């Protein structure tokens, strides 16, 4: 079965850039799912199984940190690796993300090489 990725970002522009960067990085997912915030992502994950999640942190409605918290509490999805893609490069917020199970982080702006380097070992 082909691999699936879920991209969570409130910016449609950024979701398109991440999608393009995945292709440029040679990471050809068969299915790319999108969600505009953490709650929309949980709704997607209620009906879909994905191999990896790329999530922004600073989002309206449900942010990336609360999404991680809710995901960790759900046995069906807690083991899906999540990589944070964010402008929030502060150690405190990234430490919090890591403590909630985030597998890695990529700072915006990013290059396809940085995506490949971070995701390559997780897939």
């Amino acid at each position, binding site marked *: 079965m082909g691999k699936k990725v879920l991209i969570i970002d409130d910016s449609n522009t950024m979701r398109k*850039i991440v999608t393009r960067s995945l292709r440029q990085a040679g990471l050809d997912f068969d299915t790319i799912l999108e969600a505009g915030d953490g709650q929309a992502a949980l709704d997607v994950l209620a009906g879909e199984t994905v191999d990896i999640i790329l999530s922004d942190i600073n989002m309206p409605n449900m942010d990336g940190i609360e999404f991680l918290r809710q995901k960790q509490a759900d046995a069906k999805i807690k083991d899906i690796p999540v990589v944070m893609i964010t402008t*929030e490069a502060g150690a405190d917020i990234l430490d919090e993300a890591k403590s909630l199970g985030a597998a890695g982080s990529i700072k915006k702006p990013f290059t396809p090489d940085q995506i490949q380097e971070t995701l390559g070992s997780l897939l």
Partner: protein
Amino acid sequence: MDLSNSISQATQEIFQTMLMMEASPGQALTERSNKFSNSVSAIVGMAGPSKAMLAIHLPEPTALAVTSSFLMMEVEEVDEDVKDAIGELANMVAGSIKTDLNEQGMDFKLSIPSVICGEEYEIDCLADSEGAIMPFAIDGGDFLVEFQLQK
């Protein structure tokens, strides 16, 4: 902290990395205009030990050029895609400056970007603030990036 330099570095890096465009900084402006016409402005509020604001102001043709480059497709009118792209641009610049401020011991939380556009509008800066306003030139036109930090 040299705010002008911080703005220049952040903006140039984002344009090079995400847009494959060169953004050439000019001389920092000494006076701020709060009136804009036929432009798109994105503002990110920063809350912490004091208040701060990062804003980007682009004339409409520049905003269209930036969005077209972001999306790798021709964008011909200011629509939701343009507002979203310029908001995300401001978000990335604010995030980079936030990192610089963190290193100075100042921690801020970023707001979701707000975007304003139209024929004529005004944006007031924070009361009793200091900051920097940097002009940039790209192939598609000029634009301003400003950062205001409340004293």
